[in-house]
């Protein structure tokens, strides 16, 4: 258990004792109970810890209060499994009577938890799960859901445009074979082909693959670049094996192929690769520098987007609850308030579109080895080379036109230029 959570626990115990003894809490300090779901065991444990730490950092910096309400944070281990997440969510709502649920990592967990929030009429913030349809075609089923992070295809539309601008004509995609991979590749392909590019081949290694030997030789030789979407332990292996196999052309990728979570495990072979996401730890703004330093001093590592998204989630709630007058206004009302709040977040300015997904900057990032923010060692950083400001989940297509097409899938958009 980390220092922060231990400290928090002692605060919580203190509060509990005070309440138990019948002492009146400080005037106006109502308790806000938050059920927090993150994988703390299993293959996704490190991701879950990053998430939790981001949230805890904000609470700690603000005296364990959000909008003047004392926070009782109950953290449950969802083990990276949808089934378990559902059980834990129900426990949090039914037994601990939490006001809201936050968290989950995988898109599948988001899809598992959203109906629970509807069923139990409890607010749910998928602070990481990026499945497009949570805030698109299926949003109408989830009245208590508001997303503070991103949708899978959101950063990849601008990346497709960017690839065109680089003069790439033909690209091969290689991505983990599951929904998040399909949505990432789909977004990239759509934008890239709309500006004249051609996706000439799509390769789908299984999720969690560590040996890309069977896939690398099949990459078509006439491609200008490769677009990759890797997650978990896959990215470091993929780059190493690609470069080891003598692939000299540019490699670009979806955000999780190069986020700060995997960068420390990568070698110099990743230098020069480009990816797109709504956050980079190398963002050169005073707010971000302050955040990175505080986070690194406390937890000993550079924050990833998992950390930032949860830090910002806490900040957003803080502002919303302030507006609500430091009292729990009920889920509908709080969501209504939250939607209206434009935030100056660590990642840049963020606001909500009318389908409760953030409108935010998308950063095109290049892996570079350098010193940053006064740290002594040369390290890999995601240097921001271009910013697409205020990107919505619908990119430039417009909401109605975008929603008229089906959700990105393995076969959508169809691979017109594949053979």
């Amino acid at each position, binding site marked *: 258990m980390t220092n922060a959570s231990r400290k928090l626990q002692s605060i919580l115990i203190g509060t509990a004792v005070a309440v138990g003894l019948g002492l009146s809490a400080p005037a106006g300090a109502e308790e806000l109970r938050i059920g927090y779901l993150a994988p703390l065991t299993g293959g996704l444990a490190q991701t879950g810890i990053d998430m939790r730490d981001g949230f805890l950092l904000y609470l700690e910096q603000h005296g364990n209060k959000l909008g003047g309400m004392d926070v009782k944070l109950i953290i449950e281990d969802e083990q990276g499994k*949808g089934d378990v997440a*559902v059980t834990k969510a*129900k426990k949090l709502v039914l037994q601990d009577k939490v006001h809201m649920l936050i968290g989950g990592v995988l898109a599948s967990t988001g899809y598992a938890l959203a109906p629970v929030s509807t069923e139990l009429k409890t607010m749910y913030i998928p602070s990481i799960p990026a499945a497009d349809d949570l805030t698109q075609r299926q949003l109408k089923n989830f009245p208590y859901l508001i997303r503070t992070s991103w949708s899978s295809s959101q950063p990849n539309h601008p990346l497709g445009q960017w690839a065109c601008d680089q003069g790439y004509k033909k690209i091969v995609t290689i991505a983990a074979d599951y929904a*998040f991979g399909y949505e990432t590749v789909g977004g990239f392909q759509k934008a890239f082909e709309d500006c004249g590019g051609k996706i000439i081949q799509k390769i789908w290694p299984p999720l969690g693959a560590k040996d890309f030997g069977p896939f690398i030789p099949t990459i078509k030789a006439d491609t200008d670049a490769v677009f990759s979407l890797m997650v978990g332990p896959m990215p470091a292996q993929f780059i190493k094996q690609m470069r080891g196999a003598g692939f000299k052309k540019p490699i670009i990728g979806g955000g999780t192929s190069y986020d700060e979570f995997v960068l420390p495990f990568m070698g110099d072979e990743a230098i020069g690769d480009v990816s797109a996401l709504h956050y980079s730890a190398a963002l050169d703004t005073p707010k971000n520098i302050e955040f990175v330093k505080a986070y690194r001093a406390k937890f000993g590592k550079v924050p990833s987007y998992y950390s930032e998204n949860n830090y910002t989630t806490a900040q957003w709630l803080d502002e919303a609850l302030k507006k609500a007058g430091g009292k729990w206004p009920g889920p509908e009302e709080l969501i209504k308030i939250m939607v209206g709040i434009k935030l100056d977040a660590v990642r840049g300015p963020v606001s909500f579109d009318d389908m409760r997904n953030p409108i935010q900057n998308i950063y095109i990032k290049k892996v570079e080895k350098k010193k940053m923010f006064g740290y002594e060692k040369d390290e890999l950083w995601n240097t921001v080379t271009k910013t697409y400001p205020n990107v919505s989940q619908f990119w430039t297509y417009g909401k109605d036109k975008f929603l008229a097409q089906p959700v990105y899938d393995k076969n959508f958009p169809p691979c017109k230029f594949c053979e």
Partner: protein
Amino acid sequence: MMGTQSFKIAAVIVSLLVLLIIVPYCNSFVVLLATRAMVFAILAMSLDILLGFTGLASLGQAAYFGVGAYLTAILANNYGFGLKWDFWLMIPIGLAVGGALAAFFGLFAIRATGTYFLMITLALGQCVWGLAYRWNSMTGGDNGLTMKGGRPQFGIDLSNDINFFYLTFGFFAATLLALYVLTRSPFGKSLLGIRERELRMRILGYNVWLHKYVAFIIAGAFGGLSGVLWAHANGIVTPETVVLTTSVDALLMTVLGGAGTLVGGAIGSAIVFGLREYVSTLVPWWQYVLGGVYVLTILYLPTGLMGIPGRISQWRNSQKKRETTKMASAPS
């Protein structure tokens, strides 16, 4: 001997009644866990037919669980089937589809025994997992299928957790009874014979292959039934439902409670759910607790928790024997 048997039956009936009466008054999370544990108990008991009574350790039981669950979700989501009174049709359908899949898999698996049987069932189970994971248009892939229509309603509203608890309890008790009758039948006895000495049964003229095959199908059918219930209990079906871990869980539950006792699977399921889902909300090191329980059981209670009474009487007998030998040897 008959006395202990009827005592055991009485004990089981009493504990079932206690469960039925107490649980609805517990907090709603406990109701939820009890419901899930009973669904898994059905799965564990179905596996016990193979493991405990036929001597076949299968690592593919999640396959039948999975097809039952996926079929329920697909029919409900795509055709609205099984959400009204036709839920009762889903039960035989679940049994049939689990049985049918087992009938198919059995053709490959039954020819092997021991470790080879374990490997083949594992591989077949993973095939189903692969299908669930990759057949996106049908199974939703990694995202799984959410039961959009909620739980069935036919006069009784099953979306009420307590009603659903009663329903699951009904199926649990019925399964227990059915499998008990089965294992006491001549067919069940012949399975025991196969477990103890297959060669002898063959020499006696039994069609050993067929007996095993039928047992395999019955186990699959009840696995399918538990899958139907799981889809409604959980509200979502994901590849996680069909993955190897689910098969291993079922196997561990059976071994933990005591293979060859039926009730053992239910006890194992209750303990695993209690430790995994409940203790994990209390302490972060719940995995050590669960692991410790497994290791201690294997080391000290190879016959499972249901073996405890037997162990005690064995120990008493040996004490008695020692005393009598002492007394006998004393005068000389």
